[in-house]
């Protein structure tokens, strides 16, 4: 088996894809974003409750998808919960850089999310890793500007 492939599909990733954390919906007011990847049918429904300062108080997701997209969403919710607006934005940017550019070492602050850095060796799978994060990016936008509910703004990733 190719080492790059084994590196990407490590036990942590497989575990998160089979038993995703924070899987479900949030009661009460929350920003709700639906994201999909039309080329493969992967879907995410992300609920985020932001505090008055834009901090991420809680977030949950449901959806269907491949191991990469599910594990990325699960790890993302663990990492972002409780983070300030600024911290959440930095994590979003750091993760995006790691999986889309991949020119540098993944920063330590990403924790287990660094396991997904191997996805850059599989270009057609980058959109799987990014699906949940694109949805979170849109949730942040909606939290600051109000809902953007046109179809065009849905975070399609193909």
């Amino acid at each position: 088996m190719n080492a790059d492939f084994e590196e990407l599909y490590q036990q942590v990733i497989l575990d998160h894809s089979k038993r995703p954390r924070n899987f479900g919906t949030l009661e009460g007011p929350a920003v709700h974003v639906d994201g999909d990847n039309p080329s493969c049918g992967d879907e995410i429904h992300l609920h985020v409750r932001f505090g008055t300062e834009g901090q991420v108080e809680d977030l949950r997701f449901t959806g269907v998808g491949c191991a990469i997209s599910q594990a990325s969403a699960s790890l993302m919710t663990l990492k972002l919960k409780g983070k300030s607006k600024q911290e959440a934005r930095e994590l979003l940017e750091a993760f995006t850089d790691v999986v889309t550019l991949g020119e540098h070492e993944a920063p330590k602050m990403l924790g287990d999310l660094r396991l997904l850095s191997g996805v850059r060796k599989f270009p057609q799978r980058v959109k799987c890793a990014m699906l949940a994060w694109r949805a979170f990016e849109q949730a942040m936008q909606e939290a600051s500007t109000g809902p953007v509910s046109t179809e065009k703004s849905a975070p399609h990733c193909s």
Partner: protein
Amino acid sequence: MSDPKSHRPSLESYRSEFPILHQTVNGAPLVYFDNAATTQKPRAVIDALVHYYEHDNANVHRGIHLLSNRATDAFEAARAKVAGYLNAAAPSEIVFTRGTTEAINLVANAWGNANLKPGDVILLTEMEHHSNLVPWQQAAQRTGAQLRFIPLTDSGTLDLSQLDRLLTPEVKLLSFTHISNFLGTINPASLLCARARAVGATSVVDAAQSAGHMQVDVQAIGCDFLAFSGHKMCAPTGIGVLYGRASILEQTPPWQGGGEMILSVRYESSTYKQAPSRFEAGTPNIAGAIGLGAAIDYIEAIGRDALQEHDQALALDAYARIGALPGYRVVGPTGDRGGLVSFVHESVHPHDLTSYCDQKGLALRGGHHCNQPLMRKLGFPSTSRASFYLYNTTAEVDRMIEILAEAHRFFS
């Protein structure tokens, strides 16, 4: 050239004529099972393209010089070859397009705009590829016609018991796929066209998955239009065919306007050529048509009955063996089917599975196969698909079964 075990013809000797197959992918010998998406090209087709560009390249139908005449002769010879391949009544019934999608769009626009009106019904099936669905949705929006769908049985065949209810006099057009690119179902084309004719409806056959795999005789089928793509049958991409019955083609207005399709042009108006030129605005894909002609020669030398028998045998073998693997389930009807098998694993997503297979040199398709409405109805977000062609072997199916069993262990 026959396999003593099964007494069916072996096409293995043709394999050496496909240069691309002799390579390793991710360190393993390539097993190419994505033929329903596009097939590989034999040396004979590649040589025909090279020969055209090295010796005959010129624009067609207009030059008064030798190269233009040679290019025109080769292009029209390809049209005649396609006509023979489909048993069309005349080469003038063959319109070259970019592929199946453009051919169906041509009918939906040119024929649809002239013939559909509010209250009319376009009858499709629930197993159509997006290319035989979206153009009709657009035609319905333009003309006020409505869409209606022939449903499927639980086994994945068309529910023909619904035809009496669905084929009412309001139906002006029936368009259906000959072989489903997802289920592998072979639809009863001549029966469906006869039923359409009985209520005065025009019929369209999407032959994308059948034209390179089995006998396709437009007169025996009795269709009014039939569309297919060259690249799914050994020819280059970017060339396809619309067959149109002469009596209907002659009454259909043009779609795209431009050079090649006109008789005379004034500033305010133009008059148009007869079919098929009327439907071929602009410089056509000359090399592509010549490549398609070479592909037809290649396929005819093998014989379409032998080809169908070969593809179907591999598909039935794969269908039975994948279905017997722990964790896997196959999709679509048993028995008579096209040369492809779609399947799902109980817990592994098709994209993970297809990535795994790619690591082992096995090229499958994973996704929705441009069948989103049907996949949604059946409850699959996506599936994996193995599709076969003349150069594939039983040993390759053996290898796929090994890899799928390994993937089951890897992900469990």
